[in-house]
C-alpha cells in the first residue's frame, strides 16, 4: 500500500477531521507542551520528540519547509520532482542501498509533497533508530543528482500526473478550480506541476533548489514512538549537527487580494456523472475563524446525521456523496470546499441550489445548542482516536509546526469548545458567500473509444531512454 502512495503529490491536504492527538483524558494528563521536547540545533535544525512507549515502534519524519508554493512560474512541479530524486542515492549510499536497508530492517518508508511541505518518513522497530538517523542525515546534504536518473524519473512523474489528473475528471476539475481561485499566489498551480513545466525541468533547477531548501535551518525532524529522549537526542545531534548551517530561505509569498465576485468554471471531460466543487477563500490557523470553520465542516458533512448528508443524500435523494473540507492547516490562507456528486438523473445545478439553501440557513438561523454540541463531540472524539497512530501524532505536530508552530496543536480543542452559535452565523455570513467563491462544474462527456494517435502525444517521443 505504501507503494501506491509513494512519492505522491498532495494538492493541498484538507482533512475533514484533522489528525489530532492529545486531549485531557484520564489516561494522558496535560498538554503536548508538557510531553514534547523541542531542541533547535546550532545549525538551525528543529528537533521535535514525543515519547510514546505504547508499542516498540517509531515513526521518523523529516519535514522540509518547501512545497509547490516555493516554486516559480514555469518551474512548477520542482518540489515534487526533487522528492522523487531524493530516493536516487547520495555520495555514500546508493538509492538501492537506501531502499534495501529500510527493507531489511522491516521498515516502511514513503514521502509526500504538498503546496507547503515535503516530508520523508520511515516507520520501523524502535531498536533500529540509528539506521534512520544515519540515512536521513546523509540525504539532507549529500544527495547525488544524476542526469541519467533524472531522465527516467521525469517519465515516472509524467506517468503519475496522467494517472492522478489527466485520467481522473474530478481531480482535473479540482486542479482547474484552484487555478481559478488563486491568481497571483503560488497556490495557483498544482503540486505535481503543469505537464509542460515538468517536461522542461533541468538538473540545474534541482541542484539549486536542493541547495536552497534542503538545509537544516529549513527542516524539522519529528520522532514519535518508543525511545528515550536522553538517549536519542545526542545521537541526532551527532549525525545532523555537523551539517553546515545555511541561509534560511525566505518564505514570504504573495497572497491574492480579496475576491470581489463569484468565479465559475466548467470542465468537459469523459465521465459518468457530473460533479460540483465550490471553493471559498478562508483564513487559516492563526485565525479563530479557522476553528469555527472546522465546526461548520462537521455540521455540514461529518457523519450520517450531518445537514448535507441527511438532507441531500438521505432525504432528498439528490446526491451520491457530499463532502466539506476546511483548510485550517494551510501555510497561507486557502479554501473551504464543498463538493457533491449527483445521483444519476440529477444535475450539478440542483446540488448547487441545495447547498446554497443550507449555507443560507447557516447564516440566517442560529444553530441549535444540541447540534453544536454534537459537532464538537465529533471533533473531540476524532481528536482522541487520532492518538492511536504514531504516524498521525507526528503528522499533527509537523503540520502545525509548518503553519505556526507545533504548540498550536494544544489550542485545537479549547478553540473548538469556544465556538458559539453566533460565531457560526457570523463566519458563515462572512466567508461562505457567493462573491467569495469559485464554482467548478464537471460536465460529463459520454465515454469515448480511444482516438487515433495524436500528432504529438505529450510525454512520449521526446524522452530519451
Amino acid at each position, binding site marked *: *500500500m505504501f*507503494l*501506491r502512495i509513494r512519492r*505522491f503529490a*498532495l*494538492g*493541498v491536504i484538507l482533512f475533514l477531521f484533522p489528525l489530532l492527538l492529545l486531549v485531557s*483524558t484520564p489516561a494522558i494528563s496535560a498538554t503536548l507542551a508538557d510531553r514534547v521536547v523541542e531542541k533547535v540545533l546550532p545549525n538551525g535544525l528543529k528537533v521535535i520528540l514525543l515519547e510514546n512507549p*505504547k508499542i*516498540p*515502534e517509531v515513526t521518523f519524519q523529516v519535514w522540509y519547509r518547501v512545497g509547490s508554493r516555493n516554486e516559480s512560474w514555469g518551474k512548477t512541479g520542482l518540489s515534487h520532482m526533487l522528492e522523487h530524486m531524493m530516493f536516487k542515492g547520495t555520495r555514500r549510499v546508493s538509492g538501492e542501498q537506501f531502499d534495501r536497508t529500510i*527493507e*531489511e530492517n*522491516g*521498515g516502511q518508508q514513503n514521502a509526500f509533497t504538498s503546496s507547503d511541505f515535503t516530508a520523508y518518513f520511515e516507520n520501523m*522497530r524502535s*531498536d533500529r533508530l540509528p539506521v534512520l538517523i544515519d540515512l536521513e542525515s546523509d540525504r539532507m546534504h549529500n544527495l547525488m543528482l544524476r542526469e541519467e536518473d533524472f531522465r527516467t*524519473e521525469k*517519465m*515516472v512523474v509524467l*506517468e*503519475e500526473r*496522467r*494517472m492522478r489528473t*489527466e*485520467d481522473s475528471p*474530478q481531480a482535473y476539475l*479540482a486542479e482547474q478550480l484552484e487555478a481559478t481561485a488563486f491568481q497571483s499566489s503560488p497556490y495557483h498551480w498544482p503540486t505535481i506541476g503543469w505537464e509542460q513545466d515538468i517536461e522542461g525541468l533541468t538538473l540545474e533547477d534541482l541542484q539549486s533548489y536542493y541547495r536552497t531548501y534542503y538545509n537544516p535551518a529549513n527542516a524539522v525532524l519529528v520522532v514519535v514512538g518508543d525511545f528515550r529522549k536522553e538517549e536519542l537526542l545526542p545521537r541526532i545531534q551527532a549525525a545532523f549537527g555537523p551539517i553546515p548551517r545555511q541561509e534560511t530561505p525566505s518564505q514570504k509569498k504573495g497572497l491574492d487580494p480579496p475576491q470581489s465576485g463569484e468565479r465559475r468554471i466548467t470542465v468537459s471531460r*469523459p*465521465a*459518468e*456523472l457530473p460533479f460540483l466543487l465550490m*471553493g471559498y477563500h478562508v483564513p487559516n490557523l492563526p485565525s479563530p475563524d479557522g476553528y469555527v470553520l472546522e465546526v461548520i465542516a462537521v455540521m455540514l458533512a461529518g457523519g*450520517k*446525521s450531518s445537514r448535507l448528508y441527511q438532507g441531500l*443524500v438521505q432525504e432528498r435523494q439528490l446526491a*451520491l456523496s457530499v463532502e466539506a473540507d476546511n483548510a485550517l492547516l494551510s501555510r497561507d490562507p486557502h479554501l473551504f*470546499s464543498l463538493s457533491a*456528486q449527483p*445521483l444519476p438523473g440529477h444535475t450539478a445545478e440542483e446540488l448547487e441550489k441545495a447547498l446554497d439553501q443550507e449555507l443560507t440557513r447557516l447564516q440566517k438561523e442560529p444553530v441549535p445548542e444540541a447540534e453544536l454540541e*454534537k459537532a464538537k*463531540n*465529533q*471533533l473531540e*472524539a*476524532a481528536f*482522541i*482516536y487520532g*492518538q*492511536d*497512530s504514531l504516524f498521525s501524532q507526528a503528522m499533527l505536530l509537523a503540520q502545525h509546526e509548518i503553519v505556526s508552530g507545533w504548540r498550536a496543536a494544544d489550542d485545537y480543542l479549547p478553540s473548538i469548545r469556544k465556538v458559539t452559535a453566533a460565531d457560526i452565523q457570523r463566519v458563515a455570513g462572512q466567508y461562505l458567500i457567493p462573491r467569495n467563491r469559485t464554482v467548478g462544474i464537471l460536465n*460529463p462527456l459520454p*465515454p469515448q473509444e*480511444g*482516438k487515433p*494517435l495524436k500528432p504529438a502525444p505529450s*510525454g*512520449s*517521443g521526446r*524522452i530519451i531512454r
Partner: protein
Amino acid sequence: MKPPSFRLFLLSAVLWGWILGVGLTDAPAARPAVQREQLPNKLVLLVSEDHSLPFVTIQMLLDAGSRRDPAGEEGLAYLTAKGLLLGTTRQPAATFNQTLDFMGASLEASASADYSVVSLRVLKKDLDRAFGLFLDGLTRPAFPEEELQKEIKKILGGIQAAEEDPETLAEKAFRQVLFGHNPYGHPVEGTKESVGKLTRDRVLEFFREWHHPNNAILAVVGDVSLEEVKTRLVPLLTPWEVKKTNPQPFQPTFQPGPETRLINRDVTQSSIIIGGPGVERANPDYYALTVMNYILGGGGFGSRLMEEIRVKRGLAYSVASFLDSRKYQGSFQVVLQTKNTSAQEAVKLVFQGLKRIREEAVSPEELQRAQKYLIGSFPMRFDTQGKLAGFLTQVEYYGLGLDYPEKYPNVIQSVTREDVLRVARTYLRSEQTIQVVVGNLKEAGME
C-alpha cells in the same frame, strides 16, 4: 477535494491483505495479549485490552460475504450488510445516526467476497450505549422498504460512477474473465443488471440464513477489561439465537485457457492486469507464494517488476503484483498503468518477469531480503486498535491460531529458493494467463 490517489490506495489495500503478515525472529514477537472464548451460542469472542487511550474498537465479522450471493442476485450480501444500519425494529435510521454522531462514534457495515464486517469505534464513556446500538443493528434490523430502495439507488449510482475509472474497469473485467460464474466472479456490490432486482424479502431471507452468532466472530479491542466485557457486553450477546446454516459447496471454476480482453477508452494511460488463478488461504504453499510475490512485484521498491519497469525505464508510476488469497482459491495479479504508447513494452516486460521467476531460482540475497522484511514488519500489522481488531477477526476466520504471530517467522524463514521456484512453476502458468488492457487501443497499437 480528496486526492484521487486514496481511491487507488484503498482498492489495493484490500488486495494486500495478508501479504505482509509475519513476525520477528531476532526479538520477542510483539504478540498482542488476547483472550478467546466461545459463548454458548457459538459466537467466538476475542478480547485484547489496551488502556493507553480512552476508547474501544469493536469488529463483528460475519461469514456472509458476496460469494454467498445467489446467481442473478449479485450484491445481495452487500445490500444486506448496508441494510443493518438503515433502521432497526426499535428506532429509525435518523435517530440511530443522530445518537451515534452525538457520541462521536463511528459505526460502519460493509461486505467483501468472503465476509461482512460491522465495526464500531467509541469513547469508553459511551461504550454501553453504543454497543447497544451496534447490537440493535446486527440483530434487529428492520430493513425498511423505503430506506432499502434509497440504498439500491446509491449502489447503482456508485456502480455507474466507477465506470469512469480505468483501473476499476480493468479489475472487474479481470475477475469476470478469471472466475466466470464462480462465486468470486462478480463485484461485491453487484452489477447494474442485478442490483435493481434485489428485494426486501430476499434481503430478509439472506439475513435469516447467514447472520447468526454461530457464523460470527467478535473482536473487542481497547480500553475495556475482560471483566467488563463479561459483565456488560456478553449478557447482551447471549440472547442472540443460534441457527442452523446450510453452506453450499463452493465450486472453484476458472477460465481454462489464456485470454486477452481489450477495452477501448479515450484515456492517456492504459491500465493493465496480467494474472491467473491463485490459492486459497489455507493452501500450504501460501507462504512460499507470499515470498515469491514479494520478490516479483509485491515488495515495493525492491521488487523486480518495479526495478525493470519503473526504476530502469520510467514506464510507470505504479506497478505491483498481488496475491489475493481467500477462503477458496483466489487470484494472482500484476497491475500497472503506463502511457498508451508504452503498453506493449510494459506487457512484454511483465511476461519476461513471470518467465524468469518460473525458470530460474531467485538469488539467496533476494530470498533473504524478502524474509527479513516480511518478518521484521510484522508488528505493524496490528499497531493500532483498528488494525488489531481486523487482524484478530481474520486470524480466527482463516483458522490460523492465536499463536500465529509466533509461528509465522519460522514458516517464512523455512521457505527455500527451491520452494519459490516450485510455486512459481506451479501457479504462474503461462497457459492460464489472463490479460486485460483498458486504454486507448489505437495509441497502444493493440487494436
